[in-house]
């Protein structure tokens, strides 16, 4: 990485490219917080006020931030926290505890983690001693001792809040929310979840203790806003980028890119499919990585390629790698599916179907023995193109194990179309069982 130089100085193109890569990657990988989250002003204000009251007035609160994946729940919270901690006295008083439902999978772990993050007195180094019960009484005792005006407020952030509701008896949630509803240490419990029905998960005594404040992050943004967002994501800051001419060129090229017809089409398709910003970031990331010294701007073709990469069907790609025999077996299964209307089948049925195809017309195909076919079948099972129906079926003899095809017909046809040097009779057979 090069050192930053004076603003107007020219830098070699390679330097500039690496600067751009660094800057944009940080942005697209959510390592850098934006100034303000877009389009969620009221929610931002609500949350900020709420946490401020906890920090300054010692008022206990509980709130849930709910929104589908990739709508910026964590971003919102991080922005609010950054803003809060910028204030000197809040920075000094506020204690934070970050928990994640995917990491703290039960209350025992969660309690240890809370104790550790609060660095209560039973923490030695990074170790929390004592049994689960002791830890719980210790923590509750600690929280109970505090009071509104004198003890430091504690902010509990529960990411994937819904997973905490699956803990036994919801002990942790009950206790945290109970503290937030009683005159103990001031706490703010902030839950982040993408489940809209999260309140129904809570036991009623837990639910009653929750304040029912919900911040919904549901935004209906239009395509033009979406385009603007894309442009903003790729925009380089004029002020801080070292090489102003390169910066200028880059921004112009980004603008041109967004106005390009084909790019717009790709983005529209993407927008129609999802409004999730994470997937947009992935798309942009893929196209960004094609930027190099020889290719100093993002070209529409890069974006198109990236888009094709992302919209490609996963199973179709798997089918590309199959041998002709395996492909034939897949086709035979497809026909079986048609005949028996989705009922499960076994290897013997597939082999019979395959043999019938060979008998009718096959000049190109060699007559395979059953063991060979079985090997191919097992390979398909490993690739999860077929799945055993249930655990009981897995114990049966392999030829008679009932399985289901995990593919849609459209996927098979698409794979055949693109399969290199596929024999025509196989293609015909795929189109029609009697063809």
């Amino acid at each position, binding site marked *: 990485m090069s050192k930053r130089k004076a603003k107007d100085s020219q830098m070699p193109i390679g330097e500039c490219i690496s600067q751009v890569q660094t800057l944009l990657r940080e942005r697209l990988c959510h390592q850098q917080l934006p100034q303000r989250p877009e389009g969620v002003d009221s929610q931002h204000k609500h949350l900020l006020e709420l946490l401020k009251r906890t920090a300054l007035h010692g008022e206990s609160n509980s709130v849930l931030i709910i929104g589908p994946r990739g709508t910026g729940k964590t971003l919102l919270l991080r922005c609010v926290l950054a803003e809060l901690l910028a204030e000197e006295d809040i920075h000094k008083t506020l204690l934070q505890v970050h928990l994640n439902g995917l990491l703290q999978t039960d209350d025992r772990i969660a309690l240890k983690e809370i104790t550790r993050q609060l660095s209560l007195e039973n923490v030695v180094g990074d170790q929390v001693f004592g049994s689960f*019960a002791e830890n719980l009484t*210790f923590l509750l005792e600690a929280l109970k001792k505090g009071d509104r005006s004198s003890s430091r407020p504690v902010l509990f952030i529960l990411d994937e809040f819904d997973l905490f509701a699956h803990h036994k008896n919801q002990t942790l949630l009950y206790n945290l929310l109970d503290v937030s509803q009683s005159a103990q240490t001031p706490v703010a419990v902030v839950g982040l979840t993408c489940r809209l029905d999260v309140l129904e998960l809570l036991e009623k005594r837990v639910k009653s203790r929750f304040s029912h404040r919900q911040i919904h992050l549901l935004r209906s943004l239009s395509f033009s806003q979406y385009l603007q967002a894309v442009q903003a994501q790729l925009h380089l800051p004029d002020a801080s980028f070292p090489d102003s001419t390169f910066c200028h060129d880059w921004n112009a090229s980004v603008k041109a890119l967004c106005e390009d017809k084909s790019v717009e089409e790709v983005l529209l398709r993407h927008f*129609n499919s999802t409004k999730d910003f994470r997937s947009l970031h992935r798309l942009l990331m893929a196209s960004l990585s094609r930027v190099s010294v020889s290719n100093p701007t993002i070209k529409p073709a890069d974006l198109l390629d990236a888009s094709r990469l992302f919209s490609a069907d996963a199973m179709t790609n798997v089918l590309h790698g199959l041998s002709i025999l395996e492909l034939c077996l897949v086709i035979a299964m497809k026909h079986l599916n048609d005949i028996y209307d989705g009922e499960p089948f076994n290897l013997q049925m597939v082999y019979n179907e395959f043999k019938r195809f060979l008998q009718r017309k096959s000049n190109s195909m060699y007559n395979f023995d059953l063991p060979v076919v079985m090997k191919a079948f097992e390979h398909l099972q490993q690739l999860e193109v077929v799945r055993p129906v249930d655990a009981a079926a897995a114990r049966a003899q392999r030829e008679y194990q009932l399985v289901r095809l995990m593919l849609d017909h459209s996927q098979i046809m698409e794979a055949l179309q693109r399969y290199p040097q596929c024999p025509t009779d196989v293609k015909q057979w795929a189109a029609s069982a009697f063809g």
Partner: protein
Amino acid sequence: MGRYFTRNRVRRIYKWGSLPISYDRKLKTDEYDSLHISLEDLPRTTVITNGEYILIEGVDDDNPYVAKVKKLIESDKKKKALVQWFFRVGELPPNKMKLLGREPHPQEIFFYEGRTCDDEIDVESILNTVQVKFLSAEAPFPEGDRQEVLYVKLSWNTKVFKAVKPEQMDTVAGPRLAPPPPLPCSPPAAATPRSRAPSRRALPTPDLMVMNRAAAVGGFVRGTVSAGKLMEAEAESMHSASKLSASKCLSAKRRSSVTRTPGVRKKLELSSPGKTSMDGDDMLCQLLDKELAEDALLVQRSTTSLTRPMSQPCGLTPVRKAPRSPGSWGSLSMKQSLSLSRLTLGGDGSPASTQHDSAHRPFLASLTPPLLDTPHRAEENENSPIVPAAASPRCSRRKSAQLVSSRIRKQLNLSNDLYSDGDDSDEFLPSAKDLRSSSEEEEQEEEEFGGSLDSDEEIVAKKSKRGAAGPRTPRSAQKPRSSARTPRKTPVKKATPTTPRTPRQATPSIPSRSLPARQPGSALEEARARLHVSSVPESLPCREQEFQDIYNFVESKIMDGTGGCMYISGVPGTGKTATVHEVVHSLQRAADADDIPSFNFVEINGMKMTDPHQAYVQILQKLTGQKATADHAAALLEKRFSHAGPKKESTVLLVDELDLLWTRKQNVMYNLFDWPTRRHGRLVVLTIANTMDLPERIMINRVASRLGLTRMSFQPYSFKQLQQIIMSRLNKVKAFEEDALQLVSRKVAALSGDARRCLDICRRATEICEHTSSDPSAPGLVGMSHVMQALDEMFSSAYVTAIRCASIQEQLFLRAVLAEFRRLGLEEATFQQVLVQHQALCRVEGLQPPSVSEGLAACQRLGACRLLLLEPSRLGVLQRVRLNVSQDDVLYALKAD
């Protein structure tokens, strides 16, 4: 650990030292004068006699209870002892320690004047003898190595500390009998008569001269200085005591007003021999019995070297107790003491007074019958102290109930009139002023004593200690059982509630902040602070009936010293726990005001423990501060609640979220409900849960049967009650429009009747009001629109909005789901089937049909926010899809698009 032997380790043999000295015909008890305790396999015996200070096995092995033997009796083949209790520093409630105004000496003990402790103990709980020294209030604690000596300076009546009057310490022995000529080896402890009567402030105080003289005597009451000196002291104190009683006789009227506390009856019962009041005849019999016994003893003493064979029958200690006794008892003793004083005055100061006295004994015996007869009725008519005394417990119960109902009335007034003054809570707590004045009085008393007791040269006779009873470390007196007696909401936690494995003793605490929290500024902020669920309300409106019922239940159990269970049910947020807490607070206030015996309060919560068996651990810890494993704790609690122990107080146990204590065998619940049924349990269990039919639903028969049928259910609040709750919380702060409040309460009442919800909505409405107002400095009142918005935020479901905000492909997928459902006529379809519909729909809409992967991704996104319910995604295209929203909602959301 334990420096005193407990029976667990060494088997002890308890034997009476002599034949019975008297027999109580009514109570069928034999009275003895001494008790021999010997260790198995060891020749040495310890002799306990009347008046001896003893250690009694208690909860803490390090610090056994201290008491003084008043009487040794045998009834029903059980050896028992009546004792006067002394409290160690550690047994006092820590919050009362500040009344002491100084650091307690580690070896200090307090003469107990309360009446909550049973003074009859099993002799087998006696561990050993101990030396107790009486010091004047001002005298310094002697320095030095006498570690095993305990010091008495003050008395403690559960409210205040007072200087111990020497005659209190000394008047156990009846005035009718002068002490025997003390043998050189006689223990000083019992050498002087003493009264068990507590020195109440309200009692007529004796005139100063008498007091001083008595005090002067008190300085060496314990000493075995010399026989002559001692006798002088005896006689002197006797004299003063009789004077006291004389003066009391004159002020009988004043007295009767004093005795109207519920404690009086209890006290009487406890202190009179055999716990029953007697009529004149029994009295006479007893007196005569004692005569005989006394004579027998005199003979016996000359032959044995018993240190203190002299019995001090309780029946002969009426001097100070007189005003408290019912009927004839009191009057008798009064006359008796008058005559006695005349007798003793004659022999005042002479060492021969004993002989003198004993010479008069026949005369006295003959004197008693008329004495007994005559004053009996006369007393009753004139200045009957009996009536109030006998009626007191019920009366006081009514009194405390009246108190409660007056409070409720006040609450009602409060809620009716928002602007009425609401500081009624002061009434029930002793104000700071009171406390100060009482301590001043105490000081004055101490000054009266001042200087008179400088000479501490008395030697406390050393009873042979058991070998292992080493020197006592002063600090160890601090920790035991301090929580066991405190009648406070949450028992005091020890400083060591944490893990023994923790390398250091960690205290559970959240670090304190550097800057104090800001106080609410505007009216809206003030209102918000008051509306927070956590803010403790001045009163609990709308639960008067429930409050009264629970109060009566618990109070009656505490008064009777029995146990009981109550099951309280109700949906969340209906004030169950709050009401019980309020009841306990009121009871504690009543206990502080001496209307009811003091009690322990222990609270556990099923949700606040990791395992149902932790309930034992928590109860034990909150009761005694001990830490134990669940099994051990269960055993200890079992022992505690099933055996009659000394100093037993009632325990009120609140079990919140009872359903969480369910185990497969239900032994936790079984035990919790079984303990109250034990004879010595004195446990009142209040259980709280949400469902009304919990006992029928989850409890097996033997558990449900023990829970009993005392049930109470809290109905959800009606809208009027909710409105009243908000009004009473807001009190004087004007922040809401009338209509807005009504809207909130009606809405919540219709939904759940949960008071927490109601308060939360109001709080949110104040915020919205603050944000939306154009002028931040004067936001005005919270109106309908703000409340509507708050209600909307909290109760509206987000599904419709979520569908509207979904991407086009996701919306199409939902449409496809609907179409497929309609086609199948089922509420369920596989992804594959829906995908076909989806692709068809895309073609109709003119969009590029999604690939399977894209369709699956859209499906998963909808599943993640639970618009759809999906099978695990490893099933791929075969996973089944269901809607989590009603079809109408989906159609509505998509149509409005």
